[in-house]
């Protein structure tokens, strides 16, 4: 469902992604991890057709992202980390806009919007402008917008941002069920416990390239650690965490 070959992106002299080769199949929840500036968001932006690669190829849902970007976009749902929304629209209007852009039948769209808003507990606020929504409420709208066309591929960039514990629980269960239906889920997060718990396979990217790939257990075994968090720190950490924290404390005391 998602495949990249030698995918590379550079901005002038700065290289963001280098020769990235990925293969994510239907039914997988693929965790894509990396420290800040490692190339995660750039990869997601290329795969969703927001930006173009400098070289290499990528196919999503069976279509080439460069040759048939619109066909790809018809088949993906995306929750961006930026949380960009038209805040002067109401929750209902925003979802209706996304449904129109996907040519969803008005009746079907209306029904889905109503159901999503009820499920996320947003029904009472659906005619308030997004400006009035809390961060978590906006995130629920973004998740609803990504799901509304029932796409086979989902790109989720920090989807749990701002969600309350109950909504996060529901969403994680939903992801599992969607993957069981055969949907491909590309999941990016800094919350390693969540990734460890729900992702069927994980890749860690640093300096634009993959440095580890496999299940959480396989990555832990290969790095001689117990948890994904420890593996991540070992693979990408430049300094010892305890040492860094101590230095911060000393700076505060100066």
């Amino acid at each position, binding site marked *: 469902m998602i495949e990249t070959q030698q995918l590379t992106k550079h901005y002038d002299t700065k290289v963001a992604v280098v020769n990235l080769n990925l293969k994510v199949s239907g039914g997988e929840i693929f965790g894509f991890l990396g420290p800040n500036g490692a190339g995660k968001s750039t990869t997601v932006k290329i795969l969703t057709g927001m930006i173009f690669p400098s070289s290499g190829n990528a196919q999503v849902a069976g279509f080439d992202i460069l040759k048939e970007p619109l066909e790809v976009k018809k088949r993906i749902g995306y929750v961006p980390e930026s949380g960009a929304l038209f805040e002067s629209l109401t929750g209902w209007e925003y979802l209706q806009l996304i449904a129109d*852009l996907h040519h969803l039948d008005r009746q079907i769209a209306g029904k889905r919007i109503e159901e999503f808003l009820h499920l996320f507990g947003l029904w009472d606020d659906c005619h308030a402008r997004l400006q009035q929504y809390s961060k978590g409420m906006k995130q629920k709208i973004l998740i609803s917008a990504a799901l509304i066309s029932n796409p086979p591929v989902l790109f989720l960039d920090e989807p749990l941002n701002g969600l309350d514990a109950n909504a996060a629980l529901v969403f994680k269960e939903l992801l599992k069920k969607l993957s069981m239906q055969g949907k491909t889920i590309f999941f990016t997060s800094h919350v390693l416990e969540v990734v460890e718990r729900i992702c069927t396979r994980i890749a860690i990217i640093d300096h634009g390239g993959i440095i580890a790939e496999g299940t959480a257990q396989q990555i832990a075994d290969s790095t001689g650690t117990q948890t994904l968090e420890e593996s991540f720190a070992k693979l990408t950490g430049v300094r010892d965490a305890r040492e860094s924290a101590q230095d911060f404390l000393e700076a505060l005391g100066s």
Partner: protein
Amino acid sequence: MLERLFTAYDIDFIQWKALTRVAIRLANRQSSLRFDSTSSRRKDMNYSLLLSVFIYFFLGLVMTSFVFKLHDSFWSSLILFTIVAFMVGSLMLVEFGTIVVAPEDYHIFSVQPVSSRTYFAAKVAFTVFYVLIYTMALGLPSVIAYGLVSRLRGEGFAINPYQMIAAFVGLVMVGVGVAMTMIVVYTAILRYVHFRKLKNVLSYLQLTMSFIIYGSYSLLPSSVEKVGADLPATKPWWVYLLPMSWYSSFFNLADGTLDSVSLLAAAVGLISFVGIIPFALSKISITYAESLSEASTVPEEKQSGQSTGSRKVSSVFQRDEDRAIAMLIRSQFKHDTRFRLGILAIIPLTILYLFMGLRGGGKLYDPFNPDWKSLANSALIYFVIVLFPMTIKEAVTRSESYLASWIFFVTPSSQTRLVLSVKKILFWFFVVPYLSVLALVFLYYFRNILHVLMHLVVLLLFSYSFLQVFLLVNPQMPFSVPRQLGERATMLGTVMILGPIVLVGLLLGFSFFVYQNTAVYIVVVALLVVLTMLLEKFLVMRISRKLSRLEFRG
């Protein structure tokens, strides 16, 4: 039929409708939040937009004077269409600049299955919608005047529908045609220039156009009055080189005075209008999305360290709030193009008004030796004194970075002091330098240093009081209010109408009753100082009260 036409141009009709509807909805709504979900829909209006339309309508009423003064509709419509063209061009740059270069839209729509052509068609439709609102606000009074004018010239009262139709069709074609041309040029440049540079270039172009359009508002009526009787009935050939004359030729058609030249001109006008729309749709959108995506994702060059200028500015002030705001304003001036232009816009206006003030006999109004003629000429120089504090106060309040103003709401610094710091910085860094320049001009014309000093003291007190009043009316944290469509046009229009009235009244009063007697002058200046101090006290009270209820807009 419309759907088939769209399909022929590879535009998705359903998506186009959805995008256009949303664009209009977003522009019509207040960008700031002043209502809750239970309040009425009427409160959800963008009043800046309504007010700016009203101001353009008022200016349109003023412009009917061309129709009545010039007996040849060709010439009067040429002036009208030229002003409309400048107005649309200016609007396109200042209000609709974000239509073509809109990275915000891109973050939402780039992952949706929307082709760049459909997206662009929606933007064009939205632009046409707004351009027509403003064009009609400005031109409708003249359209009506054209219907009445020929009969009012002594042929009894009746409406001439042909002239009205010619004026209406000409207006629509000029307004939409200019908007389309601007979009074509805009996106053509975007192919070769990085959008951040383009934004800067276009901003300065907008500054120049504002200069021309406001200048034309001020200069044209008196020029028309002078040459009105001398305009030739037979048009010289070069006049047809002006694109607006093509649309003025429609009046020959309406009057039945069509000759081969005006027929050709009208045909060229029609063909240009019909040709520009498919040209825009077919040529523009090809590389649009690519340019935009690159433009919106390429990181800006990093700048390291604090500049020495920043340190110098900060060190001038003793209070923490003053230093923080000084650094912020300086930084915004350096990096925020719209803010910088809001401030710099005062320069061409000042030059223009100075030029206009001096062109009538080269004499600047000397308030110590007042005469009516030079007052009328020089009023605009003084008008800048109202315009300046108001422009900069608005520029410092409204910002695209308004979301960052949360910092003012959570830091333990005094919010009242933060607002007062804005006043202090604007006064010392903007108003005082401007008045210093004015002092040199006064010195050249008055040739009396004492008169210049006395006059400057009054002007300084006026400027300071205006700044106080503007803050009293609407105290806001710096860079804390979102920008809104039509707000700048509203502000400038309001100031252009009210400014001269207030200033001329004050100047006259001072010239005839204050400057003529030194004792009276001293008493009045002392009173002004007391008034300023009282205003300051009142301002602090009001700001404290108002800010205690002020909420973060993000």
